[in-house]
């Protein structure tokens, strides 16, 4: 994973590339400061939209999850208490530290009232059901 600092000069290009490859309704909106943390994967099924956030070592109480209209936002602060010890020499510091926020625009088809969020093994999995009337239905054909 490339650090946020390294990514910064290319963030413009990044946005353009994303708009080419991903439908606009799913494009994560970039925050002004920490844009790349945490990494996100989004998958869809006929019944739901599933968002996975890769956020290792957090206390779930320190993660704020808000859905407003069709915007899903995940924010919080990642502290690394073990890192702030003065009698230690540091050789490498790659892990993300500080506050983060990522915002995802959800498609119009979701029912934000039925959202489930589970934090397991450092991955926050948010599952948002699609509205019943937008789910594909199989229609029986009767023969005459």
């Amino acid at each position, binding site marked *: *994973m490339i650090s946020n600092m390294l990514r910064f000069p290319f963030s413009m290009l990044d946005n353009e590339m994303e708009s080419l490859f*991903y*439908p606009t309704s*799913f*494009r*994560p909106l970039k925050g002004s400061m920490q844009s*790349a943390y*945490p*990494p*996100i*994967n*989004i*998958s*869809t*099924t*006929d*019944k*739901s*939209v*599933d968002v*996975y956030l*890769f*956020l*290792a*070592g*957090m206390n779930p109480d320190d993660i704020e999850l808000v859905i407003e209209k069709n915007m899903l936002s995940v924010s919080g602060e990642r502290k*690394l208490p*073990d*890192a702030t*010890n003065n*009698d*230690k*020499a*540091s*050789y*490498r*510091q*790659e*892990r*993300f530290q500080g506050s983060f926020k990522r915002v995802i625009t959800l498609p119009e088809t979701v029912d934000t009232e039925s959202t489930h969020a*589970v*934090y*397991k*093994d*450092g*991955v926050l*999995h948010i599952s948002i059901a699609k509205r019943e009337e937008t789910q594909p239905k199989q229609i029986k054909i009767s023969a005459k």
Partner: protein
Amino acid sequence: MNAENKEVATQESTAEEITLTPDTDIYESKEGVTLFFDLPGVSKETLDIDVDQDILTIKGKIDLTTAKNMQPTYIDVRANVFERRFTLGDELDSSQIVAKLDQGALKLSIPRLEKHQPKKINIKVA
């Protein structure tokens, strides 16, 4: 004519799987070295920590709860295996590694061999 085919076949068999490099912090103290790895999605069951001579290998598989017929829509994490190797200095005691995994965050503590630990010498006043 055959040689060409052979070469292609060899390349294919040596192709390595795509792996992610976990973000890592390393700290050193008098007692030893502490390493921290970010391995989101890796559980105790899918994590392998291996020391072969002086090479420490961390390998973990991301195991997500998925539903049937999922279609990826947006992807930041493009592989499902983390892997990273480190060479351990010979002053470290690789038989005494302590590992702790909590919510995808791995902490490894490797102590120094006793003879390399600093000793305090008491001076007697004659």
